[in-house]
């Protein structure tokens, strides 16, 4: 591979100096990232120790696994324990606790659960086991939704009748809108997710500008993240909110229209519960009627509890963590009752959750 290097330590140090210089003209600022991969990189790089004291980096609801409601997990577990059902899932989902149990527990009870890295593998598995009902657990943001949609289209075209998809996709812009409406939250700027933006482009983020909040589309290498923070500081100094694309090698202004068309053809927006936050209008995706035979909720008559109560895990402060109101180590359960091995709340359940990142890398 001979790609341009975005992790040069000398340039990184100079970027940090620039950030210090620029931030000295600012009061306390709070930058929220809404991508689990950013959360992990910021932790791994130890950035919080290196940045000026007046910049605080907070993690928003950027991990799709973390915000998947407990009722969804419980429904997947119940399904997995039915006869002649085979569950196919990304590895991230297996340990996530529902309100009652987890897929890992179901496996010990004899459930057939296969871990894959692509939804296309679910098609092969369904063809390999024609006498079984194969259900793919489809989670993820806009980065992942086109892959789900294309796989549903392929299953439909190839008439793979024993394959269905149990959807818990979420989309980012409605969540940003919900965060902006929450009066408790005071975010100065957003570090916007690079690979979600690779699909949706820049236009959906215009909603931030209506609230006077700038956003910088940011990549994932060390220089990308530092550049993202520097661009945020510059925008805050200038006082004029804008959406800046600091990841143009991957993100085009218009995103990937072909991928968007693929998922809009198969999927439609629906209201959805975000674990730890609540119901956010039009923030989920459901399978359109013509493709219903591949909708696990329809095929297996699953009626998910979509009440607000679904959003509140018992005994933890993850709602406040996901909104950036407190940092993970301010939760009374952090690193005591709640650890990556025994997670209580959504932010600890996935390796990309903000509590898991704090636990692994420290504040």
């Amino acid at each position, binding site marked *: *591979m001979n790609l341009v290097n975005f992790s040069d330590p000398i*340039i990184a140090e100079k970027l940090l100096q*620039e950030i210090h210089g620029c931030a000295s003209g600012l009061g306390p600022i709070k930058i929220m990232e809404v991508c*689990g991969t950013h959360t992990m990189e910021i932790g791994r790089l130890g950035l919080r120790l290196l940045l000026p004291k007046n910049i605080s980096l907070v993690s928003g609801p950027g991990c799709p696994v973390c915000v998947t409601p407990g009722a969804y997990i419980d429904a997947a577990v119940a399904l997995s324990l039915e006869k002649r059902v085979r569950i196919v899932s990304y590895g991230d989902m297996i340990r996530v606790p529902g309100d009652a149990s987890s897929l890992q527990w179901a496996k010990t009870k004899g459930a057939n659960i296969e871990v894959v*890295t692509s939804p296309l593998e679910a098609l092969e598995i369904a063809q390999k086991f024609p006498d079984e009902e194969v259900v793919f657990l489809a989670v993820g943001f806009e980065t992942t939704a086109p892959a789900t949609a294309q796989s549903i289209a392929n299953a439909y075209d190839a008439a793979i009748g024993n394959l269905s998809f149990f959807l818990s996709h979420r989309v980012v812009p409605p969540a940003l809108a919900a965060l902006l409406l929450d009066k408790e939250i005071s975010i100065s700027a957003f570090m916007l997710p690079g690979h979600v933006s690779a699909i949706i482009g820049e236009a959906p983020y215009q909603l931030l500008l209506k609230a006077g909040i700038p956003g910088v589309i940011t990549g994932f290498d060390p*220089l990308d993240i530092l550049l993202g923070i520097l661009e945020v500081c510059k925008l805050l100094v200038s006082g004029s909110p804008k959406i800046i694309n600091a990841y143009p090698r*991957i993100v085009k202004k218009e995103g990937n229209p*072909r991928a968007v068309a693929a998922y809009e053809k198969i999927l439609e927006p629906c209201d959805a519960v975000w674990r730890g936050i609540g119901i956010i209008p039009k923030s989920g995706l459901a399978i359109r009627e013509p493709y219903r035979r591949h909708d696990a909720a329809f095929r297996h008559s699953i009626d998910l509890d979509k009440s607000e109560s679904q959003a509140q895990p018992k005994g933890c402060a993850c709602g406040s963590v996901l909104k950036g109101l407190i940092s993970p180590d301010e939760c009374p359960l952090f690193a005591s009752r709640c650890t990556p091995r025994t997670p209580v709340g959504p932010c600890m359940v996935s390796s990309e959750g903000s509590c898991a990142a704090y636990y692994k890398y420290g504040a």
Partner: protein
Amino acid sequence: MCLAVPAKVISIEGNLAKVDMMGNTTTADLSLLESVAVGDYVMVHVGFAIQKYDEEEAKKTLELIVEMFEKSDIRP
């Protein structure tokens, strides 16, 4: 989980490409991306190429950073 990895397209057959991902040869589905050619770098996520890697833009971003240092008298 939005991790996407750059991979170089080695060959294309229909909707599928053979790609070199950090030294490993694997398959990527090209259905979601327009006009991909052999030799292109693509970002692969859950088995699908979701966007092309624009090498020109990558160089430009680094040049902009260096220019910024020159203006502020910091030398990389």
